[in-house]
């Protein structure tokens, strides 16, 4: 079978009807019932002939056509408004059958890596790298524009790291300012201005010494002699003009900091046809940008230089070392805030200052923001179970946040957040008890069961509901007597089958969190009415309140772990996952389950995976069965 380079977002339906045996014949009958009448003949609609997708073989030979069709069916775009449409159950059974079949075919061939795109450092990576390279403690990237997200939803995805003319100006200025700042600070100078001309050292020798040390650190690999010479020349030309060592060396360094070898993560291309292991320096960079969001440190670079980083044992040792380092804070912050969407809190989503003044207390605000970040970091460094994300016996709080939650910790707390054991009946534990999550899935002035339910399906479980079908009347366009409560209104809304199919999944989960107000405070009534946080899920499971709902979610733990794996693998690779990558995801998820959902196992398995460690060949004729097939 040909290599599948499809970017397919696999989404298994949650709480849908139990998966029935689905056969190719059934898939055929689906196509015939809903697609073929328009998509056939000499001039099929949109140039897409569904009648030709009539054998299992076509799925293997022309996965792109199948995938294109699949996306439109899954997203409710086809069949179009007015045409006979399948039920949601039928639709999802069809979609998961086709996805599974295509994935099995792809996985049977063994896993081969996808090309890693040339990727510029995003704004946060740039800032952190400048910090470590120059040992400065200013935000060097503060003037750069924010980066958009692609792939699995992260702003480190190569595909959406665009460059605008503004970037060139900003990089040049940022480099100038950072160097000028660093040159004034003795600690910083010691890091990068390691030589000065004196009685024993000529100007040329000093400049060489500085550049010899600086270039490999900036480029994250050894510098070639001709590269070094170029920057020495840049220095020499400047020196000829201004006769100042300091001005000229900073000038040459500024040149290094706007070079594409610094601004981009360049991996030496693999000229062969077969995939190969990455070289040590490229792997070191992947590892440190994954777990630290910055350049490799001296230790990691030393290991890379020995050529042994790809040794399983050494790679594992380095990975664990990185995980235990405080620099995982940057990783946790970048990953968690984008995964859980809490980055939007304080940006697009701001609790109303009049209704929720507590949010505008600086300590509470930062406590709210950092709780999920520090919690995730704790899972990583202490190698705890990932199931803590659903429910946990601890969280991370400062004194004011604990007071905000109404928790009396055993030991008095301070301003610095620390791990706190949760007392019995605290209604906290897991991300669903965290104010950041509860606020970001609310409106500024009130909670929304729909937004919260959607948040759980999308961010936590990775099973977003499809968009509303075309032509659905807006909510309550024609309501007779106005119902009283939000719950009554939403129940009425769900009576419409076109709305109910998805809202039966969304709304109950959101109602399960109604005991939390916009800022996550526990409440038993709202506007004088008692809170009703009961819910019935489409599979019949019932719960009363968040504590019981979390028990049900714990039964769905594999969805969370799969979703987290997809997100983390996508983040680590800086791109969206393809169908083939999902073969790696399957293996990683299996390993994590075997190791009791250990956080370290998840990270180690990602780092060991084919897409992370291998590099695709650039020559044509990629063999059908790549030699790395057995590597995992």
């Amino acid at each position, binding site marked *: 079978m040909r290599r599948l380079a499809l970017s397919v977002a696999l989404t298994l339906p949650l709480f849908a009807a139990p998966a029935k045996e689905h056969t190719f014949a059934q898939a055929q009958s689906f196509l015939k019932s809903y697609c073929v009448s328009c998509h056939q003949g000499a001039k099929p609609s949109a140039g897409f002939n569904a009648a030709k997708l009539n054998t299992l073989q076509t799925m293997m030979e022309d996965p792109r056509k199948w995938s294109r069709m699949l996306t439109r069916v899954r997203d409710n775009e086809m069949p179009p408004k007015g045409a006979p449409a399948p039920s949601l159950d039928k639709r999802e059974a069809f979609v998961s059958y086709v996805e599974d079949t295509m994935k099995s075919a792809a996985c049977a061939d063994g896993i081969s890596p996808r090309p890693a795109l040339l990727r510029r450092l995003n704004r946060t990576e740039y800032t952190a790298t400048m910090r470590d390279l120059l040992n400065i403690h200013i935000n060097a990237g503060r003037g750069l524009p924010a980066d*958009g997200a692609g792939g699995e939803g992260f702003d480190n995805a190569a595909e959406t790291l665009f460059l605008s003319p503004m970037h*060139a100006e900003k990089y*040049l200025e940022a480099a100038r300012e950072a160097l000028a700042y660093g040159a004034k600070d003795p600690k910083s100078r010691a890091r990068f201005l390691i030589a000065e001309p004196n009685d024993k050292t000529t100007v040329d020798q000093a400049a060489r010494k500085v550049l010899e040390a600086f270039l490999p650190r900036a480029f994250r690999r050894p510098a070639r002699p001709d590269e070094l010479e170029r920057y020495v020349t840049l220095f020499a030309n400047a020196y000829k003009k201004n006769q100042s060592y300091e001005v000229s060396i900073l000038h040459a360094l500024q040149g290094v900091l706007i070079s594409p070898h610094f601004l981009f993560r360049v991996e030496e291309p693999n000229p062969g046809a077969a995939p190969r292991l990455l070289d040590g320096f490229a792997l070191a960079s992947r590892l440190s940008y994954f777990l630290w969001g910055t350049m490799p440190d001296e230790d990691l670079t030393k290991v890379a230089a020995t050529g042994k980083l790809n040794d399983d044992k050494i790679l594992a040792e380095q990975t664990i070392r990185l995980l235990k380092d405080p620099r995982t804070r940057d990783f946790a912050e970048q990953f968690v805030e*984008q995964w859980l969407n809490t980055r939007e809190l304080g940006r*697009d989503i701001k609790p*109303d200052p009049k209704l929720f003044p507590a949010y505008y207390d600086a300590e509470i605000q930062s406590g709210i923001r950092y709780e999920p970040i520090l919690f995730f970091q704790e899972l990583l460094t202490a190698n705890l179970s990932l199931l803590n994300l659903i429910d946990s016996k601890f969280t991370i709080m400062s004194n004011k946040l604990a007071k905000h939650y109404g928790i009396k910790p055993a030991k008095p707390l301070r301003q610095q957040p620390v791990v706190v054991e949760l007392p019995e009946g605290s209604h906290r534990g897991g991300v669903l008890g965290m104010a950041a999550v509860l606020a970001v899935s609310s409106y*500024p002035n009130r909670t929304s069961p729909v937004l919260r339910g959607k948040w759980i399906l999308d961010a936590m479980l990775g099973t977003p509901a499809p968009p509303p079908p075309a032509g659905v009347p807006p909510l309550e366009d024609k309501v007779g007597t106005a119902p009283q409560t939000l719950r009554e209104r939403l129940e009425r809304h769900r009576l419409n089958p076109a709305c109910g199919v998805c809202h039966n999944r969304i709304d109950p989960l959101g109602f399960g969190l109604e005991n939390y107000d916009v800022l996550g405070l526990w409440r038993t009534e709202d506007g004088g009415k008692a809170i009703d946080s009961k819910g019935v899920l489409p599979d019949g499971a019932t719960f009363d309140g968040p504590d019981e709902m979390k028990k049900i979610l714990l039964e769905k733990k594999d969805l969370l772990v799969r979703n987290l794996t997809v997100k983390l693998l996508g983040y680590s690779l800086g791109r969206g996952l393809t169908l083939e990558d999902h073969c790696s995801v399957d293996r990683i998820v299996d390993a994590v389950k075997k190791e009791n959902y250990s956080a370290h196992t998840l990270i180690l398995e990602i780092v060991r995976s084919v897409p992370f460690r291998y590099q695709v060949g650039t020559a044509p004729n990629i063999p059908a069965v790549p030699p790395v097939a057995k590597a995992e």
Partner: protein
Amino acid sequence: MGRYSLNRRTLLRGAGAAIGLPWLEAMAAPAGGSKPPVRMAALYMPNGVHPDMWTPEGDKRDFKLSPTLSPLADLQDQLMVLTNLWNPGSVGGDGHYVKISGWLTCTTVTKTLGVDVSCNGVSMDQLAVQKTGRQTPIASMELGIAPVTTGVDKNVGYTRVYGSHISWASPTSPLARELNPQLAFERLFRAGNGQADGAKEEALLLDRVLTDAKELRQKLGGADRQRLDEYLSVVRSLEDRLERAASPEQSKWKPRVALDPAAKPTGNPKDYAEHVRLMFDIIALAFQSDSTRVATFLFGNEVSNQNFAFVDGVTGAHHSLSHHENKPDNMRQYQLINKWHIEQYGYLLRKLRDMKEGDSNVLDNSMILLGAGIRDGNKHDPHNLPVVLAGKAGGRLASGQHLSYEKDTPLSNLYVSMLDAFGAPVERFADSTGRLPGVLASS
């Protein structure tokens, strides 16, 4: 036609290649005193408008502003309100992302979470820049308030990059926006006073890294080359500017009005309303000084849930109120939010009007477009879009009218007319079917 007839740029030499235009000396405007240049800005409102409160009563020169447009009463002779325009490229897809990203391109963006982002066109503002060549230190300014929204929208299958950009220099180059008024001011200031910064030395540096980049490019495959081409293009463009700044005798450009460094705004506005006004001050200064002639601005990213409780009578957030469900109270609040946007628009227009240029003013010599990608936020409907154009483009626009067209007249026809008025005439733009009658002053 005079200096507007130059039309020799080959556009779109491939993705990314057209971003950084060389400075066209022959086309640079002569220094102050001569006929003022035409400037153009496009301002985008997210989440549509209250459909029944937008359209003015009456037609042509005899019209009464609607409740939503009423804050512009004193500017009526500068306005052109356009009714029944639509953007057919943005009909399909989802309710928001396709609408905003195609607003100035009149194309349908590729549905993607990121891997093949394309607007399948060029935005009207960037086409204006590319057609006229670069005449000012800053080719164009892209401004906004909110950073690009986090993440991708798996619910509908689009990267939120689409919801945060309206300016596209090429199908694959959405232009980043400056959000910080202080940094935007500093950029203007530096661009106009480049010599002070050791521009010559820095131009040499850029030359050096261009060599690195070209060498690296040789080793890379297709998609990566394209990425490096983007890099080469933006670096070259800056190099060109610095070289000219370093030798003023070569550059014919002079600021029409010098920027006062003391006018530098705060980098940390106290609230949303102040932030919007500071960004409008930047547009006004940029146009007055002639640092750039093209600007775009986003009041918010599409689907913005900005809390508008600071407006009297409003208690909620923008996007949720735009889904008003036909409830009177929601619709009332939605309209107040729309009206607030128009008040800010009025602030910019008055500011430009108060900037004298010979016997006219900057507004007389500008065209400031304001609109949205949908009409009723409750319906995500790209028919009969809210569109208003202000300013006279140096007398080229027949301002002071409400022009009502046949139902479903392409929005792109307006852009063809605007490009004419800007001095960047095109025969067609995207799906245009001709010029929009009545927009240009008859000559």
